[in-house]
């Protein structure tokens, strides 16, 4: 079993760190993982994306030509990547920021006003976590417990006080 996820949006939305958290959680479950950020010319346009693979087998190429799931936090990224999602895959959009719906009808689509929800929680930086909540809830790609563990590993110690809130954001995403 191999899950291939593309997370995309603008720089500063926590796109790369969302991918990293997912990969870390996968690794903590003893799966093979890779995380590959965009560092090419598209970065200069202010967009960011990363490819994450979580697999029972050793990861071959870290570059994705297709993916089982897409999480997007801006309109251009939806347009760019939705064609890469396999039939039966998952597309999750932040509908606070992405005004169009995916054109695909052969995938599961979830449109979540994550930025609005995060703003209501009083911390905009939770938007990416809310979207990951949906992804984890729908695909079971990693467990909630591993994700909490990954937060501990990835966040600097001075931010560990945020972990309960981050987990609340994750659950809000799951339950949306």
């Amino acid at each position, binding site marked *: 079993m191999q899950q291939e996820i593309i997370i995309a949006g603008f720089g500063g939305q926590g796109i790369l760190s969302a991918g990293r958290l997912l990969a870390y959680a996968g*690794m903590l479950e003893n799966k093979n993982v890779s995380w590959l950020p965009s560092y*090419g010319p598209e970065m200069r346009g202010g967009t960011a994306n990363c490819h994450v693979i979580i697999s029972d087998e*050793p*990861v071959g190429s*870290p570059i994705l030509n297709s993916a089982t799931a897409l999480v997007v936090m801006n309109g251009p990224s939806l347009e760019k990547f939705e064609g890469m999602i396999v039939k039966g895959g998952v597309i999750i959009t932040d509908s606070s920021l992405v005004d169009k719906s995916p054109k695909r009808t052969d995938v599961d689509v979830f449109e979540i006003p994550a930025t609005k929800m995060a703003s209501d929680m009083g911390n905009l930086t939770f938007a990416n976590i809310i979207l990951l909540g949906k992804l984890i809830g729908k695909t079971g790609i990693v467990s909630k417990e591993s994700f909490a563990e990954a937060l501990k590993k990835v966040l600097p110690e001075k931010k560990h006080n945020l972990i309960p809130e981050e987990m609340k954001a994750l659950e809000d995403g799951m339950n949306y």
Partner: protein
Amino acid sequence: MGEKLLMKGNEVIAEAALRAGCKHYFGYPITPQTEIAHYMAKKMPEVDGVFVQAESEVAAINMVYGAAAAGARVLTSSSSPGISLKQEGISYIAGAELPCVIVNIVRCGPGLGGILPAQCDYFQAVKGGGHGDYKMVVLAPSSVQELYELTVDAFNIADKYRIVTMIMGDGILGQMMEAVEFRNQEEIIPADKSWATTGTEMKRDNNMVTSIYINPEMLEKHNQKLQAKYKQIEENETRVEVYNCENPDIIITAFGTVARIVKNVIKTAEKEGIKIGLIRPISLWPFPTQEFEKYAEVPKAFLSVELNAGQMVEDVKLAVNGKRPVHFYGRMGGMIPSQQEILDKVKEILK
């Protein structure tokens, strides 16, 4: 093994160097390897080491010469255009038989080119680059774990033979994160450094480190000594991974990131009844010629897949020596071949 960590390739190179006892880093920033310098800038003060962001690549490589001459374990890192600038210094270091490690996280050229991954510096790394009859050991990892292990090996090889050792990766390898486990063990294999210019304290004759030999008899003798050393390295330090090579229809040869894509292709092809083997040179110099000789008559053909216009394929042809056709497939400019493209090429060859 220690705890499994999720780390970026570039950071793992830097951490590996520190574990291998490298306390001197000199570099100049360039994408996609700058995280090596970031990591060193942060960590060197903690180990009482030296980090210098030099004024240029040329300055950095000459600082490497100096530190190496004084017997230190020393690292510099750059990406293609920066490595070109270092070539004069590399030739001098090779001539002076100084040990050092150079990392090239290759980007696409020629010229300033672009910042995306490529393998277009193969010739530069294994055939020369700088002037004169010299060789560098060139190691090409294909995973983050291997970046760690081979960087440690690079320091030990450099010291053992007093030779420049290069880690050649590409932008993907440098930028990606993967699990890595650091060993809980001493990584430094001690080497004799009685030749280093550390000051005589008036107790011994002075050591001299130089690459200039005006007397032709002496210079020829020096060159013969270098060649003998290179021959010894060819015998001892060749590294290769042979994968799935029992009775394959075709053997693909690829190094670094491309070998990972090929492993995926092997799986897909198997489902279609095509058996593909992989010979992955881990040391690009010394090139694993013997493995190719061994398998030269096993498949119907060979295919070299590279992120360039066809460079390693020349060494594969020399090694296969006409016993089977050797084909080539490559992408340039930062483009990466998809599994499907490689599989299509295999089918075209086998047709």
